[in-house]
Structure formats: C-alpha cells, structure tokens
C-alpha cells in the first residue's frame, strides 16, 4: 500500500495552532521543596531583590529562590485561579490595595510575627499582621531635563500647552495609573464616590498626550526612547532609569507626595512556609534594606535601624516622621471600583 503523507491545509493549521499555543503557555514555575518561588514587581523591585535579597537568602538558607515578575493584580488573579491546588508561588508582593483583596479572598496567611527576627525593628506604621511592609512607593512628576528646562512644580503643569504632544500616561492596570487618577480626582474636587472631575481633567489632557504605556515595561521604554517628556511616575522607577543613564528627573508636586506601601506575604497553603518566612524576614533586615537604599534603587527602608539617606532625603523625606506625612489612598473604597474605572478610562482614551 502506498501511503503519502500529504498535509492538508486544515492539518497544517492545527499543527500551527498547537505550536502557537505552546508558545503562549505560561512559564510554569511550580513550587518545589528547597526552591522558593517569590513574586516580584517589574523595574526597581525586581532588580533590587535579584541583586541584593536573592544572594542574601541563598547565603542564609542554602536554598534557591526563583523570582518571578508579576504585577500585584496578576498575582491575585493567579492565586484565585489556583485555589484548591498548589499555589504557583510561595511569596506574594503586594501594594496596599491588593493586600485587602488577598485577605478578603483568603489568599495569604498571617505572618508569624513571633518567629520573625527583624519584625520588631520595623517602624510601627510598617508592621502588619498579614505581612511586613518592605517599602513605600511615592508618585510624583517625572520629566526629561534635556527637553524640559524649567522643572515642573505642580500636577497642573502637565496641562500646560507647551507640553502638547509630549505628555505620557500609563494604563490603569498598574498601581501607578490608578493612584494618579485618584490623586487627580482629589485635586479637582472629586470624591471616592465621584470620579467625574478626574475624567473631565483627563479629557482636557488627552490632546497633549503623546503615548499611554500599556504596561510599566512599555512605560519605561517611552522614557528610554525619549518618546515622552513629562508624566506621572514613581520615585523608584525614576531613580532606576537615571541609574541607567536615561535623562529623567523626579519632583514631588506642591500638593504633596502621595503613595502607598509595598509588602511581602506568605501565600496560603504553600508547602514552603518556612523558607517564605526567612525570605520575607531578610527583606526587612537592616543590612539588606541599607543595601537597597543605595542608588540606583533608592528603596525606602522600613526598618528603624536604617537611617534615611541619599536621594530619599533630598526628594521625599528627611525623617521617618516625614514618611508618615505621605498621603495615602482609600483603597477599601477604590478597590471595588477598579474594574469600572479601567473600563471608563479605556473608553475615554481610545482613539
């Protein structure tokens, strides 16, 4: 019997579709004993934790750690999806709003404070039974000093006609996007219940907007390529980009600094709770935090034994008491609206 293998178009398509699907499968980092899987944020966080926390952890425990870059909202959805099975990572990194969601949905376990060596050294506002705050993130205005000669001083400078076509924004899937919108709303007289003032201001800003980054990676690229000259940004991301030679500076606007806490958590049902505890404990260790405060990371320390220094004291806070003055957001009321805000934002910005 002669048999020729002739691929029909449909078979070819199916094969191609299979190949495509394989390429899209997420890199599955299954938690195994002896290997900790810790989530980390893109940008500064991933770089500082990879170069400082990871070696410290490996030295202290002899175990290895895989650091996986995932946004806070992504982590929440992945943990929800994995409920009832082994979680995809052992340590979660969240900004203030995700902690609320994660606690509500039972995604993280309480931090064993008694077993932690460094927890007692945390400044009081950074202690939390669900997991220690490892740093703060502060938003302000970033600008390209090569192209913006007079540094901006207030948020409303973004609306200045001279920046037409040079302003950048980021989509609302990042914490930066939501926080900027909330701060804008507050300044324009809105309330957590009423975001109309923010969206009115956004509509007025759109003609000046050159680009809206779909994610933080793309947003950093906009600065590197000098595609945008002025935009809301995060203190640490600016420091990291500056360290890479990108022309970018950060100012706290006249209306004051606004920010939120970043914390580490032991994921519920992890089989690696001991290693996770050790990892988190090292993240609040004075030596590790002092190293992370060095440029180009300039990560704000939360351990009382680390004296504030460097760019933080020049730009944000001279004393720990100043850190307490950084305005926070009402995440309990903002969180439930996130979906609605994202959709409304998308409708407004879509070209």
């Amino acid at each position, binding site marked *: 019997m002669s048999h020729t293998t002739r691929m029909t178009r449909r078979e070819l398509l199916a094969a191609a579709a299979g190949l495509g699907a394989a390429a899209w499968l997420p890199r599955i980092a299954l938690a195994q004993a002896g290997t900790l899987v810790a989530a980390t944020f893109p940008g500064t966080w991933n770089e500082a934790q990879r170069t400082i926390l990871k070696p410290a952890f490996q030295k202290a425990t002899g175990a290895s750690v895989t650091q996986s870059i995932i946004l806070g909202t992504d982590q929440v959805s992945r943990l929800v999806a994995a409920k009832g099975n082994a979680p995809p990572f052992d340590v979660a990194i969240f900004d203030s709003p995700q902690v609320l969601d994660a606690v509500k949905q039972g995604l993280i376990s309480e931090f064993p404070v008694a077993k932690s060596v460094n927890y007692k050294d945390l400044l009081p506002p950074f202690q939390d039974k669900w997991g220690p705050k490892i740093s703060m993130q502060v938003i302000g205005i970033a600008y390209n000093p090569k192209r913006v000669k007079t540094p901006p001083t207030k948020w409303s400078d973004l609306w200045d006609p001279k920046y037409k076509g040079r302003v950048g924004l980021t989509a609302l899937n990042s914490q930066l996007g939501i926080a900027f919108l909330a701060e804008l709303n507050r300044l324009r007289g809105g309330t957590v219940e009423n975001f109309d003032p923010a969206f009115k201001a956004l509509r007025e800003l759109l003609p000046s907007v050159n680009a809206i980054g779909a994610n933080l990676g793309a947003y950093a690229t906009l600065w590197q390529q000098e595609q945008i000259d002025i935009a809301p940004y995060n203190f640490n991301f600016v420091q990291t980009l500056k360290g890479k030679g990108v022309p970018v500076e950060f100012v706290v606007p006249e209306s004051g600094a606004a920010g939120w806490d970043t914390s580490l958590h032991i994921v519920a049902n992890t089989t690696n709770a001991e290693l996770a505890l050790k990892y988190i404990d090292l993240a609040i260790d004075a030596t590790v935090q002092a190293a992370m405060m060095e440029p180009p990371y300039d990560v704000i320390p939360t351990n009382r034994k680390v004296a504030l220094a460097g760019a933080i004291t020049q730009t944000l806070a001279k004393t720990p008491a100043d850190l307490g003055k950084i305005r926070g957001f009402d995440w309990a009321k903002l969180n439930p609206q996130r*979906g609605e805000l994202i959709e409304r934002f998308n409708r407004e910005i879509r070209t």
Partner: protein
Amino acid sequence: MKFNASTMVLPLAALFVACFIAPLSVLMALSFASEQGAGDFTLKHYLVFFGDRFHLSILVDTLMLGVKATLVCLAFGFPIAWLCARAHARWQSVLIFLVILPILTSVVVRTFSWIVILGRQGVLNQIVLALGLSDEPLRLLFTQTGVIIVLAQVQMPLMVLPILTVLSKIDPNLGDASRALGAGEWRTLWRVTLPLSMPGILAGGILTYAACITAFVTQTLIGGARLIYMPLHIYQQAVGANNWPFAAAISVIFMVAVLVVVGLLNAYGRRFERYA
C-alpha cells in the same frame, strides 16, 4: 503488528482533548455564569457585549487590523516567495534562511527593536528628518499604521513559507507553455502562476491573519494603551477588572468571529482546489 492511522493518532487526540477541548469547555461554561463560581446560566455577558458599541468596535477593529496586516504581508511576502522559488539552489537556501531568521528571535525582542526604529527619536525618524522629508518626527509608534508595519514584518515567515512551498511545486513547463503561447511575463504571472499558487496564498493568509489578530505583545507594545484590540481587552477584563465571566464571553465571541473569517477564506479556497 499492524498500525493504522487511527491508532497512531490516539496520543495526539488525547493531548488535544486534555489541553484544548477541556479548557475550552471550562471557558464556555464560565462565559454563561453570572459570576465566577456561580453555577447558573445567563446570557448577560453576551448581551452586554453586543449591546455596546464600545465592545463591538474593538472586535471590528481587531478583525480589520488582521485584514490590513495580512494584505501588507501578502504584498511583500508573495514577491519574496516568488524570488526564493526562482533563485538558484544555493541562493535559495540563503534566502529561505533569511526568511526564517525572524522566527529564531523572540517576538518580544523583535517588537522592542521596532520601538527603537519607529520612535520619535528612532532610526526611521532620524533618517526622515536628516533627509528633510518632514519638519517634525513622524508619528508611527502608537498608531495603527505602526502596528500594521510591525505585524507584517513579525509574521512574514508565516506568509512566505506556504506560498514558497506551493510555488516550488508548480511545473516549470506550465510557464514555458504560457510563454510559448505568446503570453508575456506579467500575463503568465497573472493567469498561470498566481491561480496555481492560490492554495499557498490562502494557507499563508489564514496563518498570518490568525497570528496578527492575536498578537498581544506586538499590539500592546507598538499600539500602546489607546489602541485597544481584543487580546488586550480580554486581558484587562480578566486580570485588571477581575471580571472573568465577561472575559470568557468575549474570548468566545472573538474565537467564533475568527472561525467565521477563516471559514470564509477556506470556502473561497475550495474554488481553487481544481488547480491543485
């Protein structure tokens, strides 16, 4: 021991059921649930999608983006395939290697390098400004034109390879016969080569189309957040807004829409089966 085709296909079929049919069924079921975890049946997510021009226009834009990018891909891909097919054997392997080369680098890397090329300070704009073709940098990044240019380049191999396969199978005597009967090069290309290569063009077209409309990385990095296409829309609904059932519903709608387009192309392709 006797093997027949059906037993050999079993492992693949099992894999297909486990990794494709099963998740797809879960997705379908989820799209009809009022919220995640609820075991009820509702059409509300579908009604929301079709009742809102915002969602509908995203679907239409995505399907049209695929058409435009596929046509650009064809316009450049067919001549490349034609050159490859007619090149001397040694050159042919070099050309084919060049065609395949893009697949050997990650799509993320390729897309980021396009940002460097298309940006305001990018290579392309520096050339345009240096030549005095424009006073201001051209806006290419974050425009649909930019997305189409990049998609066409990134997906080019998917178009060229099927066309090349079909072209190299065409009996060269047919071209000679056409010329002997008095047809010029263009007439031969138009009346003989092109119809004969139609199965390849359609296969390439379907592959390119499917790849272009689902190219999440390229669409979001080059298009930015203001050009919303279905993959980004689905991602934002699922992960950003945590609205899984709605994300599932629009995934199903997107899939059906793509199947319809591919089905139409396939039906059109049957007309050319007599040539094959």
